[in-house]
């Protein structure tokens, strides 16, 4: 690996700058900018229309999540995790629950594991659908794909709401299981949704995937190499779009994922189009997992009977638990001193770390491409800034 590539402001900057010999213009995009998915800010240095330097600025949504996590109890942090990546509350819940269960050595009943898989895959569908909509919005397809995405999102949210009581902030997982047991009616409704989702994806793909304008706009844009992606800690669909077969559902084999048949879609070029395609293909695999999980959903308790709700004090120690969230590896690192709240509560935010390579992907591209490259990273500011 070329070490210069790994240093920010390395070889790439000079190469582009020398080739154009232009006067440089510094543009601040954000924190209020329609394309930055929230309050993200980039300071972009432009040579004509080409980007020669891009410095992300964070912190506009830094709401001291980790500090609060150290002042409230272990249970009390669960609703806060909903608000990290607010498009995929269920996977945040699960990642936190897994970390605490590791910390306390808490077993989880089988039914709860299945329900967690079902909810995590529904979240993946929800997140990837919305991301495709937002990405197309950034490409300039104003409205239509996002409208379709949100139409489907509402259907999944109805399921979440009827199960957990809230559309977005589910607060559903508990240490040692789940909060409420899904009724047969809920399982049937989920089965119907999963059965219909393939048809929606066909329609969505007919709208977008073959579209010549989208291909021209996204192919070959924002190319990321596999070596840099691994070294920079990039995870999730972004890493797989570069062709690296890395999926925690396979490699960590957490929960009951080893029982399901599914493939890990990989990209070949590591560009924006690959990142979009990997997500679409992942949704198809999620539907397969959902069908298997719904068919095999066992009976039994949803909570471990020995699990404690109040006065939960794990023994001194530490644990890092991680799962494959829709945006990449979401992990929680907890240090306990035996007290009612953690001594250290750390979130490993996938989209924050995926942004490490934003500058590398944008160098040499036009400023309009920076918008879709950022869109293809799939950031949610609640998680980036915490």
């Amino acid at each position, binding site marked *: 690996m070329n070490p210069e590539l790994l240093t920010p402001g390395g070889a790439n900057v000079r190469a582009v700058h020398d080739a154009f010999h232009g006067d440089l213009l510094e543009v601040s995009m954000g924190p209020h900018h329609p394309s930055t998915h929230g309050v993200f800010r980039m300071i972009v240095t432009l040579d004509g229309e080409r980007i020669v330097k891009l410095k992300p600025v964070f912190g506009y949504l830094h709401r001291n999540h980790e500090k609060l996590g150290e002042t409230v109890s272990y249970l009390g942090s669960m609703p806060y995790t909903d608000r990290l990546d607010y498009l995929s509350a269920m996977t945040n819940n699960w990642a936190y629950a897994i970390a605490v269960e590791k910390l306390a050595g808490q077993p989880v009943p089988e039914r709860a594991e299945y329900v967690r898989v079902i909810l995590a895959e529904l979240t993946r569908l929800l997140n990837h659908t919305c991301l495709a909509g937002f990405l197309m919005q950034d490409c300039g397809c104003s409205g239509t794909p996002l409208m379709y995405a949100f139409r489907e999102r509402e259907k999944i949210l109805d399921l979440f709401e009827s199960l957990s009581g809230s559309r977005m902030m589910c607060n559903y997982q508990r240490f040692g299981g789940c909060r409420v047991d899904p009724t047969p009616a809920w399982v049937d409704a989920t089965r119907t949704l999963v059965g219909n989702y393939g048809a929606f994806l066909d329609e969505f793909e007919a709208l977008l995937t073959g579209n010549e304008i989208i291909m021209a706009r996204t192919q070959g844009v924002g190319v990321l190499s596999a070596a*840099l992606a691994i070294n920079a800690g990039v995870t999730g669909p972004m890493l797989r779009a570069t062709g690296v077969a890395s999926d925690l559902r396979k490699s960590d084999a957490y929960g009951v994922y080893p029982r399901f048949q599914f493939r890990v879609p990989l990209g070949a070029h590591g560009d924006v189009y690959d990142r979009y395609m990997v997500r679409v293909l992942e949704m198809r695999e999620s539907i397969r997992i959902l069908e298997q999980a719904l068919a095999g959903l066992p009976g039994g308790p949803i909570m471990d009977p020995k699990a404690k709700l109040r006065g939960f004090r794990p023994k001194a120690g530490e644990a890092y638990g991680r799962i494959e969230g829709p945006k990449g590896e979401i992990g929680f690192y907890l240090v306990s001193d035996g007290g009612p709240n953690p001594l250290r509560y750390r979130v490993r935010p996938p989209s924050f770390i995926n942004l490490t390579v934003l500058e590398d992907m944008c160098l040499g591209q036009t400023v309009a491409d920076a918008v879709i490259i950022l869109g293809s990273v799939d950031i949610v500011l609640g998680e980036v800034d915490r």
Partner: protein
Amino acid sequence: MESIEQIRDRLLARFPGAQLAVVANPGPAAQHGLLLDHEHAAAIALFLRDDPVLRLDQCTNVTGIDWPEKEIVETVKSSVPDPAGGPAKIVETKTKRLQPGCLEVVYHLYSVQHGHGPVILRLRTGNRTDAVSVPSLTPVWRACEFQEREVFDLFGVTFAGHPDLRRILMWDGFKDFPMRKDYVEPDDYEWEPTPHGAVLEKAKVHYPAPAPAAPAPTAVPPPAAG
């Protein structure tokens, strides 16, 4: 994957002068850490990344931990033989010891290629005030770039060799390190209708001086007792 002791032994064979210590994790997770010295940290990290057996090519998580100074009371029980020949007396001697505080940076390493991990590296600063520097591992793993900046911003650890060490989440002129345990947040409490604990203490500062006889002013009508 090799156990942490095996990795330590291999590292000691490769870097004879290195000071390595296994930090045991007593919890059920049993994810033990390896405490590195500053001098060899970067070389060891590079070795762990490129070693064909371990191939820890991804540093997923970097975080800081604040360990404030702690007073530890140690109780030593010793039996003093009774000179009169009776049963030995048990005497407890309590010694107070000040455990110095430090800031710790924790790195979680995984291998994408082999699919194993985590190997946990730890670096500690000398104290919490002036010797707060540790070597940066950003030249080894780009993933550390933003995360080390975050540790610098929130904990005040400076990373020697970091290419772009600035505040990342707070604004540039900010003076404090908010994730430290002794951080005192600015006093902007004025309307706290449901305070308890620390919030009540902070809100009390803004309460008007109690009038001698009149009832305390309230914003909402006090609920009728009954």
